[in-house]
């Protein structure tokens, strides 16, 4: 056997390698946010956040994109949250360990793995064309809702699982029916945990581009959306279009950075809120 100091030496090397690898993550995130923030901060002003674009997008603000992003992510969560929580309740409270349950779980795992652009194709074929919704806020919200469904199911199930079985047994022993137990005991206790899923779902929907490229988002609408059948402008698509297409890519560079910074602040702010809520909950339990 090798002497102990040699073994300790190789441990030191291995551990510093692991430490280095983890710190790379922090470094990369810092560089990433730093670059966007330094270049984007000068573009951000009150006008940038509250005005319509002017001069074929080279001046003015991104108000319609901000409004569109808020509408479509709230629309998506409105679709996905009830379905996701319902699915989680079924899987955790009603379903046994049969073959049917295995198929359901398998389906949800695979749904989570479907590429985002394939959701876009599905939304185009189903909502936009077959159901005749056209390229609209509604079609985009439904497509995005399907996209974030697995995430909502996952987090809702996790919070249901964290409710002790004794809660349910106590309620049932008092003569409550299964539905009364779920409605009055389990759901109120699980709600704070589901809230993190809600926030993460909104954040994921706000930042995603591919599912709404063919179903809701357009380059320019010229006005704010006024009905669910309107085409909309959203921040992620705005960044993509300004950065890749058009004749004045360099001229709109500050606006691209500015939009990216607003989007990052929104998405990371929501994620941070979800992480903080979850950590509070874990301390309580």
């Amino acid at each position, binding site marked *: 056997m090798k002497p102990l100091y040699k073994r*300790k030496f*190789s*441990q030191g090397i*291995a*551990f510093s390698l*692991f*430490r280095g*690898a*983890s710190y790379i*993550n*922090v470094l*990369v995130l810092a560089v*990433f946010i730093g*670059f*966007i923030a330094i270049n984007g901060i000068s573009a951000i002003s009150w006008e940038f956040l509250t005005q319509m674009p002017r001069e074929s997008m080279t001046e003015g603000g991104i108000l319609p994109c901000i409004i569109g992003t808020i509408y479509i992510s709230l629309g998506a969560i409105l679709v996905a949250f*009830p*379905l996701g929580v*319902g*699915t989680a*309740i*079924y899987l955790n*409270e009603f379903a046994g360990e049969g073959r049917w349950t295995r198929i359901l779980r398998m*389906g*949800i795992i*695979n749904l989570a*793995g*479907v*590429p*985002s*652009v*394939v959701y876009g*194709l599905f939304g185009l*074929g*189903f909502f936009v*064309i077959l159901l005749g919704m056209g390229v609209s806020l509604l079609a985009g919200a439904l497509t995005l809702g399907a996209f974030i*469904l*697995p995430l909502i199911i996952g987090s809702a199930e996790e919070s249901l699982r964290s409710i002790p079985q004794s809660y349910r047994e106590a309620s049932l022993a008092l003569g409550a*029916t*299964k*539905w009364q137990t779920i409605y009055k005991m389990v759901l109120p206790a699980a709600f704070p945990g589901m809230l993190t899923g809600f926030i*993460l779902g909104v*954040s*994921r929907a706000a*930042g*995603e*581009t*591919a599912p709404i490229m*063919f179903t809701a988002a357009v380059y320019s609408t010229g006005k704010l959306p006024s009905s669910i059948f309107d085409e909309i402008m959203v921040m*992620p698509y705005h*960044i*993509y279009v300004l950065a*890749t297409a058009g004749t004045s890519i360099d001229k709109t560079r500050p606006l*691209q*950075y500015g939009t990216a910074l607003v*989007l*990052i602040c929104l*998405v*990371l702010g929501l*994620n*941070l809120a979800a992480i903080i809520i979850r950590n509070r909950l874990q301390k309580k339990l």
Partner: protein
Amino acid sequence: MGLQSWQREKLVHGFFLLVGASGVIILLLIFLFLVREGLPIFEVVSVVDFIFGTQWYPTYDPADYGIFSLIVGSLCVVGMSSLIAVPVGVCTAIYLAEIAHPRTRSILKPVIELIEGLPTVVIGFFGMVVMAPFLQNLLDLNTGLNIFNASIMLAFMAVPTIASISEDAIYSVPGHVKEGSMALGATHWETISRVILPASLAGISTAVVLGIARAIGETMVVLMVAGGAAMMPESVFDPVRPMPASIAAEMGEAPFRSNHYHALFAIGLVLFVFTFVFNLIASWLSERHRQVGEANL
């Protein structure tokens, strides 16, 4: 007249059964629509020519619908990003689960979750405006938008997936297994490398497979950073056009129900099958993982 309580319970059960099936129904619908809108292309080209044809000229007359260069583009980008993301992700997981001080851990974990939450379009934007000019100047290339750049950006996205799932796997190795090894006089590193890692290998493989599956389907990054040339690459600094990028870039221009439109849905179907297979492999691996425990140690 009210419902009897048992009737209401049955109704509630039925309702949740229906809602619970929504995930599977959506998955089936996705598959159905890909098939319905994708299959008509095979009246124009054969399956073999579609998958192994290297010419992708969907807007020419006569048009060519061979997606082999797109598949190769996807595989190059994903393969190379795995070379970066797998070591970094697994090392991060080991550090988090075994070595890090609880306070370090309480900072590192949120950082990784925040990276996972970054909008992909912003990562693509960063690759375009920061990384591409940097690489171009540094290595004196024709274009900074290439396999290499796209792989780095994709790796950045895949690391959190690999790290968080691997960490769970490492964490779930029973504590007494580790204590047994330490009690026999092994150092902490020897314990990790000879006991803990072999015991969590299935879980780590699941993480790697899921990370790769996510990278294959990722759209915005490869759309903005991979360069977009539908050609067979000859070096890692060549531009490529991975499958998701092709769909996203061309669907806007393809006329409704044209051959081009059907071909793009067929690419979606190929992509769907790729990720489906990867997910099946991951599920199979994690099934095996479940059996690791006291019983067979």
